[in-house]
């Protein structure tokens, strides 16, 4: 088959051996303006790379071999062993799911056929959003819309810099706006203390305001903002340590803004019942929209989590945490959370896929484990079967859905290695079952 992603570098004629307009799959933003070069030592990010991109593209993945119980075997033998384990299993758990659209398609097909459970390694964070979506819904925006039209950016309780090192550079401190030849400076507001503000700088950044509450109390601030907007303000002098006057001042800013955008990253809201913060922000945005315009922008979605949630939804109806054991999709986001199932001894085989970063290792478990992983993946002990697989966008082509759940991008084959695609391995297993 022709490889459509085999890259003729598009765009302007490349300088020397530069590969331009490369999409980076190592966080949910999927920046696609990277420039890379390739020499005998491997890939080098030469332009627009953040630390995640450099770590992801420049890793050496050579020399990894398929293994059974820690012993090197050839690929066919490893696939045979994996097939035998899946055939024998009465409830395989398909976890990790760090992959692209074709990868997750192959997981869904295999889980359907083998009667397994599907869940992404970062579902816990994603479900802070999904629960709100499935309960009340929301008003959201996307990256380009925010980049051009937001005049106030409100960061809600999350350290964006850590998850998405180029967010402020690409979306907030941008030179141009579709609305004006001379776009005004933007106000950036942080709700929560200790959030990294180091990248919030440059010509488009105006005032930076911080409401310094503890991160697990941002929901109280958001609730107080909503109450002010509804016209039922709290009579307290302060909320979560923030003076009521500061909250009122922020409300005035929001009312006079043209398009305030509330940004959060669900994996960053790492405390119990954090979905209630997402719910409170969504309610606040809805309150504002009664008279004015405002929108939410949820970030996160690293390790292919957005693609996994979307493909699972369009193929099964449900955003992950689905069991196919009965032959039809059975959905329960508490019951079919793989971490809970493993902790409770449910399931008799773990099939783990992590093709982007080596940090996404499988959880420790006594049940046999098959790992399709990027070479160097963190493993507590040698799994029953290990098959090194390529990274979509470096070792082979693919497609991935971006964090705003609207845009998807082609991932190019940069020829880093000849590692196989996870989708081909799972496809072979499915056929053999």
């Amino acid at each position, binding site marked *: 088959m022709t490889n459509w992603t085999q890259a003729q570098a598009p765009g302007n004629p490349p300088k020397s051996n530069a590969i331009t307009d490369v999409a980076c799959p190592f966080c949910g933003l999927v920046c696609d303006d990277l420039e890379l070069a390739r020499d005998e030592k491997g890939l080098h990010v030469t332009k627009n790379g953040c630390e995640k991109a450099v770590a992801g593209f420049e890793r050496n993945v050579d020399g990894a071999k398929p293994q059974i119980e820690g012993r090197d075997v050839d690929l066919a033998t490893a696939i045979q062993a994996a097939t035998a384990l899946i055939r024998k299993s009465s409830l395989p758990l398909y976890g990790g799911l760090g992959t692209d659209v074709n990868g997750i398609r192959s997981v869904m097909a295999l889980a359907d056929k083998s009667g397994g459970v599907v869940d992404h390694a970062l579902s816990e964070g994603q479900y802070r959003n999904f629960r709100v979506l499935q*309960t009340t819904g929301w008003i959201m925006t996307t990256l*380009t*819309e925010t*980049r*051009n039209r937001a005049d106030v950016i409100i960061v809600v309780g999350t350290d964006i810099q850590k998850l998405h090192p180029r967010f402020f550079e690409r979306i907030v401190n941008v030179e141009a706006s579709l609305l004006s030849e001379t776009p005004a400076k933007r106000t950036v507001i942080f709700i929560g203390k200790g959030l990294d503000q180091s990248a919030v700088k440059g010509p488009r950044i105006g005032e930076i305001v911080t409401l310094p509450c503890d991160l697990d109390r941002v929901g109280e601030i958001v609730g107080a903002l909503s109450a002010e907007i509804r016209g039922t303000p709290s009579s307290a002098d302060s909320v979560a340590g923030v003076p009521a006057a500061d909250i009122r001042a922020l409300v005035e800013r929001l009312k006079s803004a043209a398009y305030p955008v509330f940004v959060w990253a669900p994996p960053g809201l790492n405390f119990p019942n954090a979905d209630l913060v997402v719910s409170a922000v969504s309610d606040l945005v809805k309150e504002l929209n009664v008279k004015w315009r405002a929108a939410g922008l949820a970030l996160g979605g690293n390790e292919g989590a957005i693609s996994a949630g979307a493909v699972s939804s*369009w193929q099964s*109806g449900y955003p992950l945490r689905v069991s196919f054991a009965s032959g039809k999709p059975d959905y329960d986001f508490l019951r079919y959370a793989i971490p809970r199932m493993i902790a409770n001894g449910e399931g008799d085989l773990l099939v783990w896929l992590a093709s982007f970063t080596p940090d996404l290792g499988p959880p420790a478990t006594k049940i046999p484990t098959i790992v399709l992983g990027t070479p160097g993946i963190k493993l507590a002990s040698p799994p029953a079967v290990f098959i090194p697989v390529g990274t979509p966008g470096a070792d082979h082509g693919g497609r991935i859905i971006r964090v705003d759940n609207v845009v998807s991008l082609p991932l190019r084959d940069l020829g880093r290695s000849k590692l196989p695609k996870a989708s081909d391995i799972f496809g072979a297993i499915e056929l053999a079952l």
Partner: protein
Amino acid sequence: MLIKFTGGTVYDPLNGVNGEVRDIYAQDGRIVATPPPGARVDAEYALNGRVVMAGAIDPHSHIGGGKVTIGRMLLPEDHQGHEVSRTELMRSGCGHAVPSTMTTGYRYAEMGYTAAFEPAMLPANARQAHLEMGDTPMIDKGAFVMLGNDDFFLRALAGKKDFSFIKDYIAWTMHAAQALAVKIVNPGGISAFKFNQRKMDLDEKHVFYGLTPRDIILTLARGMKELGVPHPIHIHGCNLGVPGSMDSTLATIRGAEGLPLHLTHIQFHSYGTEGDMKFSSGAPQIAELLNQTPNVSIDIGQIMFGQTCTASGDSMRQYGNTKSSNPKKWVVMDIECDNGCGVVPMKYRDKSYVNALQWAIGLELFLLVNDPWRIFLTTDHPNGAPFYYYPHLIRLLMDRTFRNEMLEKLHPGAQAATILKTLNREYSLYEIAIMTRAGPAKSLGLRDRGHLGAGAVADITVYEDNAQDREAMFKTPLFVFKNGEQIVKNGKVVKVVAGATHVVRPDYDKGIEKTLREYFDRYHTVKLDNFRLSDQEIVDSNCGHTGGECGCVIVQPSGPRIS
């Protein structure tokens, strides 16, 4: 492989065949007039007394793209109890208001449909729309790309750019997004909502660009004509769901200036403000004008009672419709300085005056518009109802007694407010074949689909004739053939196939890419070359073939470009 279909009663309006007993031959996936001399018939189907039509074509069904999947994510409780088991042949899934992709494909085929077209593909979301359609087996697909709320278009129009530049942009977008046609949703209104405008009438100006919906519609209508795109501009007009929307609909039809227009889900735009409830039917006036306006075609967007989920690009009007959301959860989005969307669950109730009258308005339009070549059978899946209500809708159109029995169960006020009971028309099988096959194929420019003449693709549906119950007849076809292969027997899938994706590629001056590239670099978060979809991406999704027997990407011919 030569197949003979012997003795069926054939309804093939594109070839003027109205219920004649005929033999049909299909060789290697296509219909042939007569078999080559001496050729051996490999398979024969005796179809005496049975009804034979081309495979049905749905010209407006939301089957792929982000907003449909938001609808799927939003309503897990609606899927529960409607899960579908895996079989030897078929993948598992779910299917009620917003069925999963595979289940959608199977159900369409089991209902005798061999093609369905996604009418609202956002350029920014085109890749995902094609991915989802790629996971929809059995049927041919294609999509209408949404223009007219995107900044580039509005800026070019407001800046009085040369019309050939705008046409280049339209054509470039059709290529890049792999589209069959172009749609405009709430012209300018999706963009205006981002600037906090809450309504847009036909001659109301966008606060930022200074354009009116009329300007936008006429530009795109002329663009389609001059680019030689077969399907006219597909218009989701102003004021969706608003009492009084009939006025802007009538004004849009009158303002067409002779250009071809297609007004989609017109039922949702045919409301008056008469009566105690300030909600009345505008169907008689709209149908009367349509009957005098041969350049305008419509589809209905019929509603049916029960739970569904509306999913539209129209963020402005869908935000307004959240008041009626049931259950009370919904999503509205502003998207990429390109478009928007609104996903709002709805439960249409026969005991609600408004819902009952919406039902009646749709049927009034069906029965009052005379020319079946200009009216297509849709529920605007899933907005009016899921697509699998079509057999029921066909019975409502073909069986006056049944229709009146249904009417009598509705809200009494709605019964009094509709002229439906006075309408005696019953559609014939020939007219149904026009509305569900020949008409859509002709309008979309699918030259070898929707008919049974020599050269057509052998997409064929065979029904047991059942004059007593047309719903049962259309629900369970005896056979469905796709490309000459039997895929359904007695209403059940017997073979899973991949469908093709149809596109149209009008000419454009490649010079526009220089301007677009700079625009993307400066304002967007995606590079131009990553925005564009290759054929191979669609091939990968559909079937893995690079063309040939299942024809993964089919480029339908466009007419000559004028200037």
